[in-house]
C-alpha cells in the first residue's frame, strides 16, 4: 500500500472498531427499532395508512430529496429542502393518504401490490436520556401495478424517533432514494 492509503486504512480501522463497539452496546435498542420499522412496513403493505400516520409526531418532517449527479452530492441532502420529491409535514402526508381514501386515486386504486422490505437497521445516536434516537435503515419497496408494470424503489432512511409517554413517534425522516430518475411515486417509504 502507498503511504496515504496506509494512513487512511489505519484511521478506518479505528473508526470501524468504534462503530461496531457502539452497535454492540446498543444491540437491544436496535432490535427494538427493527420491530418498530417492521411494524411500520407491515402497515403500508396492508394498506393500514391511518395507523401509519398515527406513528408520526404532529411536528414530523418527511423529506425525499431529488438525487443529483453533482460533486459532493450526499453532503447536504438534509438541507436540500428546495429540491425534493416529497417535503411534507403531517398535513401533507395526511392529504396523500386522504387522496387514496377518496376512492378516486386512479394511479393507486385496485391495482397496486406493495411489499416493503426493511434491512440494515442501525442505531446512529441516542440522546435525551434515551428518549430521542437516530436510526438508519435500508429499504426496498416493490410495487406491482398495471399488468406487467413492476417497480422497485430502493433507498436508505435516516430517522429521528422520539419517545413520549412510552410511545415512539417519528419526528424526522430523510429518505435517500437510490434513483436519479423516478417513476411516479405512489408509495410511502
Amino acid at each position, binding site marked *: 500500500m502507498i503511504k496515504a492509503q496506509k494512513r487512511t486504512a489505519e484511521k478506518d480501522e479505528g473508526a470501524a472498531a468504534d462503530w461496531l463497539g457502539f452497535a454492540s452496546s446498543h444491540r437491544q435498542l436496535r432490535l427494538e427499532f427493527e420491530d418498530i420499522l417492521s411494524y411500520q412496513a407491515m402497515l403500508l403493505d396492508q394498506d393500514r395508512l391511518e395507523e401509519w400516520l398515527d406513528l408520526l409526531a404532529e411536528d414530523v418532517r418527511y423529506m425525499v430529496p*431529488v438525487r*443529483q*449527479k*453533482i*460533486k459532493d452530492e450526499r453532503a447536504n441532502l438534509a438541507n436540500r*429542502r*428546495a*429540491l*425534493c*420529491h*416529497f*417535503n*411534507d*409535514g403531517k*398535513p*401533507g402526508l395526511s*392529504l*396523500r393518504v*386522504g*387522496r387514496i381514501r*377518496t*376512492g*378516486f*386515486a*386512479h*394511479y*393507486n386504486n385496485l391495482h397496486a401490490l406493495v411489499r416493503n422490505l426493511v434491512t440494515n437497521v442501525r442505531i446512529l445516536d441516542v440522546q435525551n436520556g434515551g428518549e430521542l434516537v437516530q436510526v438508519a435503515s435500508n429499504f426496498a419497496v416493490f410495487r406491482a401495478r*398495471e399488468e406487467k*408494470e413492476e417497480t422497485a424503489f430502493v433507498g436508505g432512511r435516516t430517522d429521528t424517533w422520539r419517545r413520549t409517554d412510552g410511545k415512539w413517534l417519528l419526528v424526522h425522516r430523510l429518505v435517500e432514494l437510490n434513483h*436519479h*430518475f*423516478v*417513476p*411516479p*411515486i*405512489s408509495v410511502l417509504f
Partner: protein
Amino acid sequence: MKSFDELVNLKDRTVDPSVFWDPELYRLEQERIFARYWQVVGLEAEIPKPNDYISSWIGEESVFVTRDAKGEIHVLLNSCPHRGAKVCRAEKGAAKTFTCPYHGWTFRNTGELIGVPLLDENYFGALDKKKWGLLSARVEVVYGLIFACFDPEAPSLDEFLGDMKWCLQLMLDRTPEGMEVLQRSEKILIDANWKLQSDQFCGDNYHAAPLHRAVMMLFPNANFNDNADGRNFCASFPHGHSFFRVASVTTENPDHPEIAGWIDQLTETRKKRLSPAQASLVTQGTSAIFNIFPNLSVQCNPEFVQIRLNLPRGPSHQLLVYYLLVDREAPSTFKEAAVETLGLLFSGSGIFELEDGTVWAEATNSLKGPIRQRQPLNYSMGMGHEKADPDIPGMVTYNPPTEDNVFNFYRGWREALEYGPGGKRQPHAIAAE
C-alpha cells in the same frame, strides 16, 4: 405509415392511433422536430455566473448549456466529435473547459476544440481543430427561458413564437426582478408517449374535474370550471402553440395566510407591466396552462410557475424534467410554502398529478392494438366556435372549454413532419370552410 391526412385530419379533428406508436413516425419526430425546432433546454437563472453550466437534453440527445467567460450562453451537443463519449459529465457545475475522458480532447465552454493530445506527434499537425469543435446550437433567451435550435435554416425564435409571445408576456412578465429557479429538477419517467402530456398542456381543462376528482374531494373550495370574471379562454397559434387561461384555480394553503397579501401585491405589479387588454385578464386568481410547440409545458398559478421539459424516450416512454419558479421578490416564507405545495400537488408524485400518469400510460398501451387502429381519437369538441378576437391574438374560444387548442398541437405536429420548421404553415380553420 398512413397519409398525413389520415394521421391528423384537419377537417374532422381526429388523430390516428399510430401517431402514438409507429416507430417510423417516432424517427421522423426525432429528425424533423427535435433536431430542427427551437426547444427550451434550461433557464438563465440556472447559470447565473460566467463559466457556470448545466446539462440537459434536446429530444433524446444529451446537451450541455454553458455561460462563457464573456457571459454568452452556448448550447453544445454532449458527444465528443472524436468518438462520441460524454464530454460534460455532471448535472451542473462551473468549468472553463471540458476534457473528454476517452482520448483527452479538450473543449472551451464555447464549444471550440482547444486541446488535442499529441497533435504534432500523432496527427502530424494535420488536424484542423476549427472543424472539430462540439456541435453547437443557436441560442435565444425569452423571459429567462433558454431556447436552443440545432437547425441553422429554421426561422428565428421570434418568428416561430409569433403571437404566442403575447401570452408569454401575459403570464411570465411578472415583476421587475424576474423569477428565480427554486427547484430543478425532478426527473420523472412515465411509460407514455410524450405527446399526450403536451396536448393536455395545450389546455385540456375538460379532464380536470373527472380525473382529479380525488383532489376536488380533498379541497371542496377548488372549482376547476370557475369562470369568475367570464373571460376564460383558449387560444390556438400557428406552429402548434396553444394557451388556456382560467380565472380562478385556487388551492389555498391555510397554514400560510401571508400568501394572500403577497398575491395582491404581485397582481398589481403585474398589471402595470402589461397592455390594458392583457392587464384586464390578470386577477388574483388568474392561472394558465400552455404548451410551446413541441415540448415546453407551462403551468402558471398566481403563486408560482412550473415548467416541464417533455422529452421522448422511445414511442412509449417519456422523461419529464420539472422546474419550479417563483418571483424573486416573494417573501421567503412564501418560497418555502411554494416548495412544499408543489411537492404535494404538482410533483411527479403529487396528489394532483399521479392520476395523469396512469391514463397517459394506459392510452399509450391501448393505442397500439390492431383493433384499436379502427377508431381515431376525437378532438372535435367546440369545433367551429373558435374565432379571431379583437383583444386576444390567435384563434380564440371563450368558455366553455374547447378541444381546438388541444388539437392545435397536432396541427403543429403534422406541419413539422410534412414541412419542417421553415415550411408552409398549416392553415388553421379548414373545418370552417
